[in-house]
């Protein structure tokens, strides 16, 4: 075979590589905004984890900005973001709502006792029905609602210092949530965060 034909495999390979690269950039479409964004939070009625006889509805979340955090004890990442949530709870006057997703209540209560409870309300969603309403992909997931109950921001994954500073804090300001100070906010930097990415 002639010399030139030895380059044919290289040519074919470059073609395949290009296709792989194109497929890869197509994949960026996976990052889609949530359909809930800018839309009202769904109506719901669910019991509270700590007071099972009390039902909470969407009306309870209205009137002030609220941060709805979907978590569970089976979710290791929820653990890693817990400290950041504790910090947000202490540093702001936002209404903190936890959705205990597909979990066992006894374990969840024990978790809150052990690590502290950042939430104003903890919704017991043991069958995951509220999660489905919310289109929850997994845990943790976090929604930020304005006073009218519309979803203004959604985070799939953990709330870490980076998300807090770059995504949540500016939106909190826009919603006029009281935040203690930027300097104090920085002190709330959790020591983990880096480990959560895996």
């Amino acid at each position: 075979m002639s010399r030139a034909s030895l380059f044919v495999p290289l040519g074919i390979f470059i073609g395949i590589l290009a296709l792989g690269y194109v497929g890869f950039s197509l994949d960026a479409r996976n990052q889609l905004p949530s359909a809930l964004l800018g839309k009202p939070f769904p109506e719901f009625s669910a019991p509270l984890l700590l007071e099972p006889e009390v039902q909470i509805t969407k009306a309870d979340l209205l009137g002030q900005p609220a941060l709805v955090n979907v978590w569970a004890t089976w979710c290791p990442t929820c653990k890693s973001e817990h400290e950041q949530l504790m910090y947000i709870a202490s540093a702001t006057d936002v209404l903190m709502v936890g959705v205990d997703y597909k979990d066992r209540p006894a374990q969840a209560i024990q978790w809150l006792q052990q690590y502290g409870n950042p939430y104003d309300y903890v919704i017991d969603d043991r069958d995951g029905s509220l999660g489905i309403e919310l289109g929850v992909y997994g845990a943790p997931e976090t929604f930020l609602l304005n006073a009218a109950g519309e979803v203004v921001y959604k985070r799939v994954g953990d709330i870490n210092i980076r998300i807090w500073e770059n995504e949540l804090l500016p939106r909190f300001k826009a919603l006029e949530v009281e935040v203690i100070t930027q300097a104090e906010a920085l002190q709330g930097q959790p020591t983990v965060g880096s480990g959560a990415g895996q």
Partner: protein
Amino acid sequence: MIPELGHFSLVIAGVLSLFTALVGLSGSRNSLLQRSVVSMTVGQFALTLLSFSALVWSFATDDFSVAYVANNSNSLMPWYYKVSATWGAHEGSFLLWILITSGWMLALCLRGHQYPTSFFTKVLGIMALLNLGFICFSLFTSNPFLRLIPMTPVDGADLNPLLQDFGLIVHPPLLYMGYVGLAVPFAFAVAGLLEGQVDSAWARWSRTWTNMAWAFLTAGITLGSWWAYYELGWGGWWFWDPVENASFMPWLAATALVHSLSVTEKRGTFKSWTLLLAITGFSFSLLGAFIVRSGVLTSVHSFAVDPERGMYILIFLALVVGGSLTLYALRAGQNSTQVAYSFLSREFFMLINNLILIVALAVVLWGTMAPIGYEAVTGGRISIGTPFFNRFFVPLGLVLAIALAVLPLLNWKRTKAEALRPAGISLLIAAVFAVLIWFVLDPTSVVVATAVGLGAWVVISHGADLYKRLRKGTTLPMAYVGMTLAHVGFSVCMIGIAITATQSEESDVRMAPQGSVMLAGQRVTFLGVVEVQGPNYSAQQGVFLVEPESTGSYELRAEKRRYFAGNNVMTEAGIQAGLLADTYVSLGEPLADGAWAVRLHYKPLVRWVWLGALLMALGGIIAIFDRRYRSLRVRDTKVIGAVAQS
């Protein structure tokens, strides 16, 4: 501390592989430096083994402070699944990949004395360079040792229940042995190109390693297919899923390589082609890793989608494959020797064999990549299903079988047409057999009868050749035994595929307790559902009584399991395995009044598919023990090389 130790040893192993690569590829003639390559390789293996053991230890001791353990294990899991969970997801399985690469390098060192030193150090240098890339990938994009401190979870999230299974314990290690094993012939090819030595001796060195890697790959794919069959509850054993294709493509290239190497060894020809196949085989291993781990193609098997990882592998692929193919384009022409052969010769049939395998490879590649191309061009989404692959693989398999049946009668260089007469006789016998099958299995297609007939032809012609040799009283070379076994394995596999694909019976039915249905002449009665408890799950177990017409009846139990940690539901099929047929029951969902949706399968000869594949793998291993591969000293090989070239 233990995870940090593992992390640290991986870093040191990376540093060692960097030095091994630098020294190995520098081409230094300093004997001290050359020997240091071997000791560094041993050190690298010890360190990766330590690193891997540290991760196993973290799993075994339920160290949920390690994020990877917390995400993939649970204290309720039995110990053996805790250990196998180490390679149950991306990070850990890649560490296993690295360990296996180091393992192959260590194995190379054990036989290093057989090869010329400068060639051997280059081979190790290339392997070390590859391993460096793998280690960096692990450290920078998928570190399994990251900790969750101070928020250590009380318990882990559990391993995906599908993977809590014997199949998963063995399937990935075997498959990776094959994937990474192909790096050895790759390194031999690149070193051969660099050294300008690609001759019969080179082919002989490469063959042992290629056969081993190929056999592991064959066994790994077979196990994967078997696992999918009993674990997914669909009763299928091959889905042309992108991830399956990703393992099938290197296999096709490696199969072509195994054959092409034998021509290069025996006749000193096909050199450029053999080199190209050696590069291609490993390239497809890497491409497979890209497909599986980048999320470009979503499949039932895919790992978490991660653009960073995908991009890393894509760049690595571009460097390794692009680099070696450029080297090939520049250097491969230098070695060309021209040896004449006629159309009726072993060489020509090997060429046909290679051509078929490469066309098959092109088909799989096309079927896997076309949806991406289509979307890139038109923006629309398509899927390419099983019919596409079948359209090609049925004729390709049949033509391959014809070539295989004639092969034992062919000599190298040229064969007289009269010598083929025995093939005519065996074809006649096989045809009679096929016609009989045709009548027994009626109504069935011509293709099935042809496949069975051709399969029988391959077996008969190999059997006749074996008989002829035994009668002459010559001792059989192991290479010959291995080849015969592998070719018989191919026929067994082909017959199994043809029969099970067309003669299976499948029905989805609604079954009330005590209700029964007929399945392939057997009465299947649903006795009801009982609750059972597993270590980390609870299950509803459907009990079925199967009464064949002739022999005794037996019970089958199929389960619907619910795993505690994530509330996962999983189907566990009940299978009565048999050499002639499997009876397969799986539970669908509960319906009203205690009735269940039930899936029933009767699958004749399905075991032959895996049995045949395992025979092929066994043949590949047996061939390695041929006398001529045993303890060749460098000076001997030089003589042999010289003889082969003259």
